[in-house]
């Protein structure tokens, strides 16, 4: 039996005037997963998050969070009550102090975790009397994370949580996030274009490009499923015709044919051997390569 879903989107479309930000996005995020939402800038990651949280209305399609329709304003309030969110720009009220914005945010959440608030305020060394506008980018990110983590949320939605941070602070933020998730057992949906970061903490991923999910699933399955098959011929490589499903890209250059497959590598191999190559190499593919191959295949 498959895991219950906390986020489900089907054929989700969002147009901004003539710009198609989402073009039939399908997404399934199981409860308890750390879900990395990978994509290039402008791929539709932030738009997806805005639709999930009711900040933008989908043009068409179905989107549910906690099995509630995210496009219905009244239901969206219930979704946000159970969701912690950190925006890419770490939008916070500049005129408030750290202490004020913590108190302000806590007032909206009956399940606010005062114990976690104390712990993260100490861990992140946040000065309670300092104005938000006077915080460094790193401190601002930590404060935004504190405000999201202490809501007693069942779902964390993070939009590029480490963007603009130096590697040390980014690592600190990721470690805090992983430790929190391990302790609290909640679901995390985070967007990023930092492949290493997704590789480090996600157990599931979806790669989005041009407003569509072009690959996704358990990270482990992706790594297992994707294979690069290289065929070398003793003369000019023949024009390849593969019938197997799961072919992502086929390239031919001189004596070499390179096939990238997302599944059924054995079946592709069987087909490839019929072309009589002099050698066949099959190698695993990193997440970075999967990402680059899938998004460039879309261009």
């Amino acid at each position, binding site marked *: 039996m498959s895991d219950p879903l906390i986020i489900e989107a089907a054929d989700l479309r969002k147009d901004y005037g003539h710009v198609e930000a989402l073009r039939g996005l399908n997404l399934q995020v199981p409860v308890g997963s750390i879900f990395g939402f990978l994509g290039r800038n402008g791929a539709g990651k932030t738009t997806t998050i805005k639709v999930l949280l009711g900040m933008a209305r989908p043009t068409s399609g179905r989107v549910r969070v906690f099995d509630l329709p995210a496009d219905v304003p009244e239901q969206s*309030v219930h979704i946000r009550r159970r969701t912690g969110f950190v*925006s890419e720009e770490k*939008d916070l*009220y500049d*005129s408030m102090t750290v202490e004020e914005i913590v108190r*302000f*945010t806590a007032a909206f959440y009956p399940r606010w975790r005062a114990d976690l608030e104390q712990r993260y305020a100490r861990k992140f060394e946040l000065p309670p009397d300092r104005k938000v506008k006077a915080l460094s980018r790193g401190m601002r990110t930590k404060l935004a994370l504190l405000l999201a983590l202490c809501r007693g949320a069942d779902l964390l939605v993070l939009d590029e949580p480490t963007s603009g941070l130096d590697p040390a602070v980014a690592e600190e933020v990721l470690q805090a996030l992983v430790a929190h998730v391990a302790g609290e057992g909640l679901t995390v949906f985070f967007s990023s274009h930092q492949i290493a970061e997704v590789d480090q903490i996600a157990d599931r991923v979806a790669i989005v490009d041009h407003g569509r999910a072009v690959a996704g699933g358990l990270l482990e399955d992706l790594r297992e499923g994707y294979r690069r098959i290289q065929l070398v011929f003793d003369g000019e490589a023949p024009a390849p015709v593969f019938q197997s499903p799961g072919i992502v890209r086929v390239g031919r250059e001189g004596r070499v044919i390179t096939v990238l497959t997302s599944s059924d590598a054995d079946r592709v191999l069987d087909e490839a051997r019929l072309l009589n190559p002099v050698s066949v190499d099959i190698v695993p593919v990193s997440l970075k390569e999967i990402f680059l191959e899938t998004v460039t295949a879309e261009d």
Partner: protein
Amino acid sequence: MLWYKSWLETRWRFLIGLALLMCSTAGVILIHPRLMALMPMADTIDPVGELGQRIKESVDLSRTYRGYVWSQLFRQNLTQMGTLFAILLGTGGLFSYSSGGAALFTLSLPASRNRVVGVRAAAGLAEWLVLAFVPSLLIPMLSPAVGEAYGVGDVLAHSLCLFVGGSVFFSLAFLLSTVFPDLWRPMLMACAVAVVLAIAGQAFREISRYGVFGVMSGEDYFRTGALPWLGLVVSVAATTVMLYASALNVARQDF
């Protein structure tokens, strides 16, 4: 807590407005004896042209303390400055720079857009209510200091007119703030509308008492003792429509 956020966003505009309106009111009252001392000189003014007629009208009104207070405060200072501060309190909203560019943070909270807009509008109107009533209440308090008396009932009636009329400008600025993300355009556009209405009021003086500035100054109440009910009702209706339009505009927007 949304009330607190609205207060933080508008408190300086409100406090500056309160201070200026109170200073202006106190100044007009306390200077009254000196102006009265100059009154015999006013009789020598030859009322030539439009400007001369205006000066003569103002002088004639000032021969009574009630007329002086109305012409200097309710018709001029409080109405003009009140319009400006009603506009200032109405500008800045859910996604303006005054909210620190933190619209997404606000929208991530478990509060509906209607509630966010409603609280912001209510907080601004509450501040405008204070600006409309508190400085005026200085009049009966300070009048004995210059040997005069002014009824609290008159003050409340004029303040009500000021508040209701000024709420039209507040809601206009509020509506424009849901259209434009910056502070300046809503403010300048609302001020431009106010200036146009003021010029129109000067050009067509016979009907100016029925305009929004006529309502704000409470001219009908001053001259007849009756509240300008029609103007008040129309102002309330205009305010309600613009605030409702603001809520609809925010509800349909993508952020």
